[in-house]
């Protein structure tokens, strides 16, 4: 048998001598070595990994020519025909586009998302921020560009009023995103933060996909799957609810039902309001999702709520200084969307249909001030990816809505129907990895105005370094005037705002710095003339007055300023803190304003300091938030200069904590929060009694929050053994 061994050795030797040793080096385009690159000859087992200097060395029995295949994580793989020879081979690889080396258009956008790695905010932040009360818009109000207006609903963005911001769920505008407003009291948003996987808050210069908002859109995208399984019970000082979640392989359902009554809370927290019917509410929601195919997703969401409230509110125009207010609200919102993609995502479709119905049965004293809206909306959008490595794409879509508005003004009914249609087109083009340009155009038609508008939008971003970039955005934005103006005058035009935004940001190692400066020009704003023969008339500061005067679109104004954002999750282990500062300088001539002046909803400086920390040993998450909003103008009839007075600054220190534990075998979350720890007597604005003929000085009333220092406790018990909740989420 020895000779066989010998023969084998011979053969092996022959074969070994017939081998060629290939050597070379793999680098990036700049010549930096790439260790660990995979090098092989196509179709053979011959190959190796590069060493720490990017060098490789392997032998092959191939002769003449072969294809050398080189791959390295994060780089474009390359194939190269080579001649088999001992001469060293040198190959340069091109880095693939990724989130770090490719620019993203960010001017005006503040995103909270999981899917993108380079975001400053995560969905979780919405629920873990103290002072936000797990309310989406309250948390958005802590972001740069937004400001806090304690007594009104809505998002006040960069000099814009609450009506100038729209809330959009899965592409569909929500007509009544907040619970109905009571006089001088802010109400919560109707939507649970847990419903959403991603939030994008635009403080201006937003995409042509959205319209009918002069200052801002808040885009909320619902989750694709359930977060819990089984039954859950939640009880707190104001509310008791049940939730049920169930998921199968390709479908899931969630149902919630609740009853709320603020009596227990008000018994413990002193109220500044003379309640005659403590807020009481009931409602429920149903979510259904179905994945009919690998790429398709159908979502349905329906919600109903009913609420009752009664109070004697400060009304300077009344002899007693107070007026009885009673309100019953009924709200229904259903929305359904279908998304799908074809050809490996080259074509993407998003289609949706939504309907909302909202009725306020409201009385002031004995007078009927009821109102209602019905909204039907449809939307379809098609996105075409243009392939390539960078994500160039074209997007085309259309939406239409029919909204019925109804108002009863001291018993007189007003109503109108607006049929609205829009088409939009947008392209995103990369000129290399460093420069991206997004340009779009939106055309709109409103039947009540019987007018068209065409709004171009453009934004671009340039990468200035590995971690930093600058963005620039410009856009025109149109909004149909408030229905209350249109009841009496349908010859009005759209109101218009032009935004110009410049942004710089740097995100590195869990630290973010961002500065954005902007100039907004307002035009075609509605002005109202209450005097005889279309003259100005005297100013009425009542925020709930009906605009019965003559109106036109001669108003204008501007807002300019800058916002700063700093977030650091790195320096102090376990601590996550952010600081925001917004400065705005804004003046307008609109509504009944006699001169260009800063509107009463503007606060020039807004500061928010937010900190949170998770304490693992006691499985508790704690957060602290401190906010300062400098004084806002208010109308003082005794001051001859219009809106020259300023309220004192509003400050608030708040705390929140959540703790995970078990009651029996059931997973339980307990939470507590304290708002306005320092019991500051904040004043939001002042109201004056009307001028009297006897020459006496008018009386001044302060408008503040419903309560000063207040606290809130509650808990959630999951009845299913499968339940999984992360305390850090709360």
């Amino acid at each position, binding site marked *: 048998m020895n000779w066989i061994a010998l023969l084998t050795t011979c053969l092996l030797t022959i074969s070994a001598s017939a081998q060629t040793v290939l050597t070379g080096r793999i680098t990036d385009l700049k010549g930096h070595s790439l260790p660990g690159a995979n090098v092989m000859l196509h179709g*053979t087992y011959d190959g190796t990994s590069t060493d720490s200097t990017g060098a490789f060395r392997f032998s092959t029995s191939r002769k003449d020519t072969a294809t050398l295949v080189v791959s390295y994580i994060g780089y474009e793989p390359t194939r190269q025909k080579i001649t088999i020879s001992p001469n060293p081979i040198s190959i340069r690889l091109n880095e693939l586009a990724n989130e770090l080396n490719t620019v993203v258009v960010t001017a005006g956008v503040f995103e909270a998302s999981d899917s993108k790695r380079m975001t400053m905010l995560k969905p979780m932040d919405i629920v873990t921020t103290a002072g936000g009360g797990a309310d989406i818009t309250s948390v958005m109000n802590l972001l740069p560009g937004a400001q806090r207006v304690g007594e009104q609903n809505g998002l006040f963005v960069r000099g814009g009023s609450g009506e100038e911001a729209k809330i959009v769920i899965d592409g569909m505008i929500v007509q009544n995103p907040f619970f109905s407003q009571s006089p001088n009291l802010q109400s919560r948003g109707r939507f649970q933060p847990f419903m959403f996987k991603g939030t994008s808050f635009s403080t201006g210069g937003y995409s042509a996909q959205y319209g009918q908002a002069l200052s801002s859109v808040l885009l909320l995208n619902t989750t694709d799957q359930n977060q819990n399984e089984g039954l859950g019970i939640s009880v707190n000082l104001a509310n008791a609810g049940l939730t049920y979640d169930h998921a199968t392989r390709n479908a899931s359902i969630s149902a919630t039902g609740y009853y709320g009554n603020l009596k227990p809370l008000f018994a413990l927290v002193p109220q500044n309001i003379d309640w005659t019917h403590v807020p009481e509410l009931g409602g429920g929601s149903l979510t259904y999702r179905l994945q009919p195919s690998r790429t398709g997703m159908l979502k349905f969401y329906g919600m109903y709520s009913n609420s009752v409230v009664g109070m004697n509110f400060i009304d300077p125009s009344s002899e007693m200084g107070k007026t009885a207010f009673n309100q019953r609200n009924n709200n229904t919102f259903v929305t359904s969307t279908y998304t799908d993609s074809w050809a490996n995502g080259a074509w993407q479709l998003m289609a949706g249909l939504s309907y909302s119905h909202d009725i306020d049965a409201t009385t002031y004293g004995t007078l009927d001030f009821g109102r209602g809206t019905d909204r039907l909306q449809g939307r379809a959008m098609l996105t075409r990816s243009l392939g390539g490595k960078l994500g160039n794409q074209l997007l085309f879509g259309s939406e239409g809505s029919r909204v019925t508005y109804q108002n009863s003004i001291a018993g007189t009914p007003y109503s109108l129907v607006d049929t609205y249609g829009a088409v939009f087109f947008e392209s995103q083009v990369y000129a290399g990895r460093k420069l991206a340009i997004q340009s779009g155009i939106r055309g709109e038609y409103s039947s009540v105005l019987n007018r068209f508008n065409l709004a171009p939008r453009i934004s671009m971003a340039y990468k200035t370094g590995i971690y930093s970039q600058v963005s620039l955005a410009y856009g025109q934005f149109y909004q149909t005037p408030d229905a209350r103006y249109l009841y009496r005058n349908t010859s009005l035009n759209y109101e218009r705002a032009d935004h110009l935004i410049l942004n710089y940001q740097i995100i590195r190692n869990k630290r973010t710095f961002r500065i954005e400066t902007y100039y907004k020009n307002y035009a075609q704003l509605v002005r109202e003339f209450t005097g005889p023969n279309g003259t100005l008339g005297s100013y009425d500061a009542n925020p709930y007055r009906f605009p019965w005067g003559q109106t036109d679109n001669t108003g204008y104004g501007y807002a300019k300023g800058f916002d700063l954002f700093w977030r650091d999750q790195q320096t102090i282990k376990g601590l996550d803190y952010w600081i925001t500062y917004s400065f705005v300088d804004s003046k307008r001539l609109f509504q009944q304003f006699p001169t260009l002046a800063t509107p009463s909803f503007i606060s020039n400086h807004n500061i928010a300091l937010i900190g949170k920390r998770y304490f693992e040993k006691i*499985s508790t998450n704690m957060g602290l938030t401190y906010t300062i909003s400098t004084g806002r103008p208010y109308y003082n009839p005794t001051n001859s200069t219009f809106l020259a007075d300023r309220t004192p600054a509003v400050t608030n220190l708040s705390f929140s904590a959540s703790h995970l534990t078990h009651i029996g075998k059931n*997973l339980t979350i307990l939470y507590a929060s304290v708002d306005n720890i320092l019991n500051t007597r904040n004043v939001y604005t002042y109201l004056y009694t009307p001028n009297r003929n006897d020459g006496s000085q008018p009386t001044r009333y302060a408008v503040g929050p419903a309560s000063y220092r207040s606290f809130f406790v509650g808990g959630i018990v999951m009845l299913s053994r499968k339940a999984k909740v992360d305390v850090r989420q709360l």
Partner: protein
Amino acid sequence: MKTLITTLLTALLGASAPTMAQSPQYKQAMTDALTTMNNFRGQPSATDLLTIANQFQRIATVESGEWLPRYYAGLNYVYLGFMGKDQAEKDKYLDQADMNLKAAEAISPKNDELAVLKAYIAQSRMIVDPMNRWQQYGPLFRSGIDQAKTMNPANPRPYVLEGSSLMYTPAQFGGGADKACPVLKQAMEKFATFKPTSEFAPGWGKQQVEPLLVKCK
């Protein structure tokens, strides 16, 4: 004797011959790679893992009909995913793991070991940023484990992953030794009778479980 020589020659020259299923080169290459992998002592370095992942990927490129090289390449990328120096790097490795998993699934759909790998990738993704990712990857991990168990009740690896995940989850979050130990014991019982389907089929897991069992009474 002639036959023997012919065989030897075929074997030696085979590199240039068209590849066949389970060719001797394949067997040799897999044996080499698995030996290297099994000989890692203690915590292998990222370089070692990348080298071995590359090695499996090279085999996979030649043997386009075999799911195992893809599987092992993916598995090594999962290990790398635990080791990356920052989130972006970890995700880069896990993207590679996903890519290999997808390729393997295309070759061998309905494979319990690939369901385990899927769960393992989901777990690794979650660990990159648990606070923000448990929502997305928790259910994926769960579904991978469940699928693997249904497809092959005798496979101990889904229990290894499930048990070790429970062990590292604090009790307040529904984990802890009390929850983990019964699952880990199940894994050990299954290892006692588990027979790999082929010589290169996955066999890992026992060594991961043993140190954890110390925490169980």
